[in-house]
């Protein structure tokens, strides 16, 4: 903690709990950030100071990508305002030195686990989770492992702090020849953006043993699907793609048909409605984890063996359910690609993602993509409206759940929605709400269609298509629009009420509108909140989260709004 060696020009403050504060306004910010993303995870990014965290996983991800512990130390010391706390450097070194000390390679039908030294070999061989997986000891430093235990052994070892470098290779899978199109069907040219190419190349690693499994982390709207297409095109093999919903699956199918030379009969949908197993098959997590009852088997897991898959893609890998993890443990011989906007899981199973899907292969900060124009800048505005006088006493004496509903269904919100619509006469607008009655009251006078959980899939597809094509400018949606629905030209979202569930839901909502726009490249997110109610308390949590994601967040009282109130 010496007060010497203070360098005010540097942007980092490294704290003893392994968090790193980054001063965005520092002249060296860009260079520091580019270094940091290699070995630290972005935790939050409010306006002036971003926070990163170094964890064992972030270090192992860095090591897997070829970053050395010396480079990490130099980056920290080189960009830090103050001396780096000794415990941080020591622990980073300790974590980094654990990577690569255990390696898994192939030996005929089985695998060989090799430790760097005899002491480590002894240590891991005595661990109770590992003992049953060792078939025999081949030497002081090597063990024979059954091929089917490949995933389990990696999981067991990472949980005791020793990540395994998996060099055992993959099965090639059934060959599938296709290409990415140079132009879309409407004639517009198509090619991968530079960061998408880099991500796909990092995953593939020219076909070497070090590639073929891992996670691509890109912000919402940055085109993770396209990266997956790029990976598939390099591998030229049959692919199973797991998604979060049928809508998302069908979105994938559209992308595949639009951007590759794959034919319709080469792409299958495996869902509650259809059971097509084709060279490229889209399935949902829900169908894969469906079973008759708690005691029954997950019979659709057979799809994993349904073909000789050369690649399995896990869309939104941060939402991977536990049964899929278990099944994936048995699929380690197949290439695996995870796609996500964040490696942070609500359930803390990031180490399982590392062990079973693979290390992070690419990560581009959203700020970089935003500055380069690949994702739209978004402003968030919270409009506060008063509770009508007549509602104040009923609100004051109601129980909390009812209070929330009273505040959420405040009739004055409809006027504000109309006001906002009037400010965006040419934009495509999504109106998101929780209460169907409220949505109907709002949408019906405007002639706006409403999509809910009860809307049949076919109807959903039709309406989304109209919206995408611009024939429909305003759309009201309930929860279903949260996940993996791709609406390229929605640039305004108005949230009139919400479940305020997980952080992921908030991120997903904004993801729906973060798409490159012709012209201004600006997107708007509005929330309408009843002032001085429980709804405002909940809105604060959302406000904090969005600020930490780096969004510009402002609060306006409805009394400050002026202009036309109605739109037809």
């Amino acid at each position: 903690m010496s007060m010497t060696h203070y360098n005010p020009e540097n942007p980092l403050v490294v704290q003893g709990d392994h968090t790193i504060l980054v001063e965005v306004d520092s002249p060296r910010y860009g260079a520091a950030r580019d270094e940091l993303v290699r070995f630290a995870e972005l935790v939050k990014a409010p306006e002036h100071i971003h926070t990163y965290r170094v964890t064992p996983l972030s270090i192992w991800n860095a090591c897997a990508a070829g970053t050395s512990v010396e480079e990490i130390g130099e980056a920290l010391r080189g960009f830090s305002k103050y001396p780096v706390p000794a415990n941080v450097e020591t622990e980073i070194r300790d974590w980094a030195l654990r990577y690569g000390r255990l390696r898994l390679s192939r030996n005929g039908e089985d695998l060989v686990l090799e430790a760097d030294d005899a002491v480590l070999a002894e240590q891991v061989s005595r661990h109770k989770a590992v003992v049953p997986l060792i078939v025999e000891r081949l030497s002081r430093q090597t063990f024979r492992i059954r091929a089917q235990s490949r995933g389990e052994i990696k999981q067991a070892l990472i949980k005791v702090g020793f990540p395994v470098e998996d060099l055992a290779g993959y099965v090639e899978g059934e060959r599938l020849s296709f290409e990415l199109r140079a132009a879309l069907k409407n004639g517009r040219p198509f090619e991968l953006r530079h960061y998408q190419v880099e991500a796909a190349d990092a995953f593939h690693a020219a076909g070497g043993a070090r590639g073929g499994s891992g996670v691509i982390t890109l912000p919402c709207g940055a085109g993770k699907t396209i990266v997956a297409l790029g990976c598939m095109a390099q591998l030229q093999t049959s692919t199973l793609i797991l998604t979060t919903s049928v809508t998302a699956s069908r979105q994938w199918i559209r992308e595949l048909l639009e951007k590759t030379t794959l034919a319709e009969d080469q792409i299958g949908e495996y869902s509650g409605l259809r059971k097509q197993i084709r060279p490229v098959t889209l399935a949902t997590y829900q169908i894969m984890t469906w079973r008759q009852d708690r005691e029954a088997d997950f019979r659709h897991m057979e799809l994993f063996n349904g073909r000789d898959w050369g690649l399995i893609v896990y869309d939104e890998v941060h939402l991977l359910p536990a049964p899929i993890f278990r099944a994936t443990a048995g699929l380690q011989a197949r290439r695996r690609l995870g796609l996500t906007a964040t490696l942070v899981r609500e359930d803390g199973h990031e180490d399982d993602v590392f062990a079973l899907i693979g290390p992070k292969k690419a990560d581009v900060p959203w700020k970089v993509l935003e500055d380069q124009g690949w994702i739209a800048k978004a402003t968030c505005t919270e409009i506060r409206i008063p509770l009508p006088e007549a509602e104040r006493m009923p609100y004051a004496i109601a129980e909390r759940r009812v209070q929330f509903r009273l505040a959420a269904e405040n009739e004055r919100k409809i006027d504000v929605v109309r006001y906002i619509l009037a400010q965006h006469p040419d934009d495509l607008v999504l109106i998101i709400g929780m209460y169907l009655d409220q949505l109907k009251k709002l949408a019906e006078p405007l002639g706006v269609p409403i999509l809910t959980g009860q809307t049949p899939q076919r109807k959903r597809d039709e309406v989304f298509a109209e919206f995408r094509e611009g024939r429909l400018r305003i759309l009201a949606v309930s929860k279903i629009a949260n996940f993996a629905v791709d609406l390229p030209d929605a640039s305004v979202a108005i949230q009139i009420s919400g479940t305020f569930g997980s952080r992921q839901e908030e991120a997903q909502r904004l993801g729906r509108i973060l798409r490159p726009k012709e012209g201004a490249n600006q997107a708007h997110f509005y929330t309408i909140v009843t002032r001085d109610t429980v709804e405002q308390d909940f809105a604060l949590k959302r406000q904090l989260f969005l600020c930490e994601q780096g969004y510009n967040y402002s609060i306006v009282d409805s009394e400050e709004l002026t202009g036309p109130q109605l739109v037809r």
Partner: protein
Amino acid sequence: MKVLEINWLAFLADVEAWALLPATVRGMLAGAHAPSAEQINFELREHHGVLLRANILRRSANGKRLLLHKDTKNFLRVVRAMEQNRELEGASKPVFETYLSNYFTYEEKNSLARVTGQWYYDHEAIYRRVSRVQWPQEFVKARHSEWVKLYALRSFRESYFVSLDVFAMSQRLIADCLENGGSIPFQELTSRYEGRDSGVLDAALMGCFRYLLLYPWLKSGTREAILGVWPGIIQRLNRKPPTPPSAAEVRNVFQSPLLIHDITTVLVSAGAEPFRVRAGDNMLFAKAQKTIDESLTALPDWVEKGFQLDRTSRARSALFYADNQGLVEQKGVHGKDLRIETTQRGLKWLELPAKIRLRQMLDSVREATEGLRKSSDLHYSDPSLLVYRLSLPSEKLFRKVIVAAKEQYTSLPAGSLVDFQNFCDYHSRRGNPLVKHIEAGRKLQGTVGSDYFYEATTEEMEESWADLLWSILRARLLIMGAATVGYSADGSLCLGLSDAGRYLLGLAEDFELEEASGGEVIVQPNFEVVFLGPRPLAEVEISRFAERCGSHVGLLFKITKKSVMKAASTGLTAESLFEILGLYCSKDIPNNVKREILGWFGNCRRITLQSTVLIRCQDAETAARVLAVSGGKVERVTDTILELRDRDKRTELVRKLKGMGIFV
């Protein structure tokens, strides 16, 4: 003398066989218990030949097994006792005390104490006398009659040195040991003193043991039986001349004005919330102590452990200095609300740049001119607090101590670090004013640390001087940022003077201190308050309305509804809050943060609780009748409930109502 009262001649006869045994066998035989039959017959089987020849073992009646020779048992008992004496090689006071306890009865110890002029058993006094190099040296030169007269052990059946021959033999034994580097192997005694009366040798050994002139032990490693003077004396006899400390290669360097940072932390914490003090012992309540402990900056492990700078002791030092400098004060009523608060002087101190704060601290030590402090027991101590844990009755000697200590630290070479052990060793033997005082034939008494001494010995004062240098480094120079410490490649502690140290000791008129002055404070849109550099006063102010998450630098606060409400309850307004943030923050407060804070303040209301008299009437008509006679002192709350505002009118109203047939 318990075990030592044996037939030493018989021991000498047996020890020759002992000398023939390998060290491993000796180790087994000298273990805590006699070897078992299993050990004898199996583990020692390779050595049966030599053990049989040495008569340590014998065959059983049927010849199949080997047993310990019964004549050996006494010998092995002594050997086992001497094995325990191996600890004597550590040559410390506790080891000496254990030896005394093991071998001397209470009466014997008392008689030894009387020998040293005490009227009661005082192991310190005995140790002091017999651990001096002069103790055996004086004996070797002493005349029999004088020595016996001085040291005769009264009330004992025998005087150990009654015989001139025994006395002379003892002197010869000790002289030979001293010439031989302090010790002689037992197995050499027979050949050395061949031809001498064996009874005399036996008595001489007993006498030397009795008077703590010689000691028997088994040497570490080889288990050779050794007769020697006190091992501490052996070490002194064999030590090399002191060499001046030279520059060392170090790693893991540490230097920091730790005390200033800790005082700052204490003032900031006390400024936010005064520390509650226990009435019983004037110590802080656990919660307050915990608050400070958690706020102090972490030190590298090797500094914290190596210099005993745990958080609790740092907090105490910081509070002590802060109090000393008038930066905090105790307020309140004993047993009620006793607390420690930051003073105005303390708040102003927080505004100062770090260098000025450190300079003020160093100047207070540098320029202490009021002379030495004299305590009630007429001992002197140093008000500059540089040389503490020392008090002496002689002012002149004390001043010499201060000068010597400063000179020795001043002699550290600029720009490099030296081995600290070497530094202490050199200066405790050269330029040690306490040793010089004794060598000039003067008696010395006083206190160093928790050790009180009188008639101090040279050995003690060398040790005390090293302790003093250590305490100056640990508790003064290091924490004031005046010393740089580190470890050499072989793990030795090294030290040097920093710029601040050179200033403190008068070698320089100024010093450099890199500091993160004017660090930016930023309020984030997510309500976090980040300090990019230390701003102690800002910390105090912002802690009034924000929840603390850290200290010093980094993410320090989060503004929450709860923290704002708490501030509002103390009377803080939104305007004052924004004024404070405006004063310290380098960037505008985000719009959403402002709005929310205003909203939270806007939701605050003040109500009063009041006692009153309510009159409940059974119907509206009765209420109206009561109102009519109340003379305006009663107000209507509802149709049937009234409030009597003036309680003094209660009796009168009741009387009136009674007259109307309305009973209370």
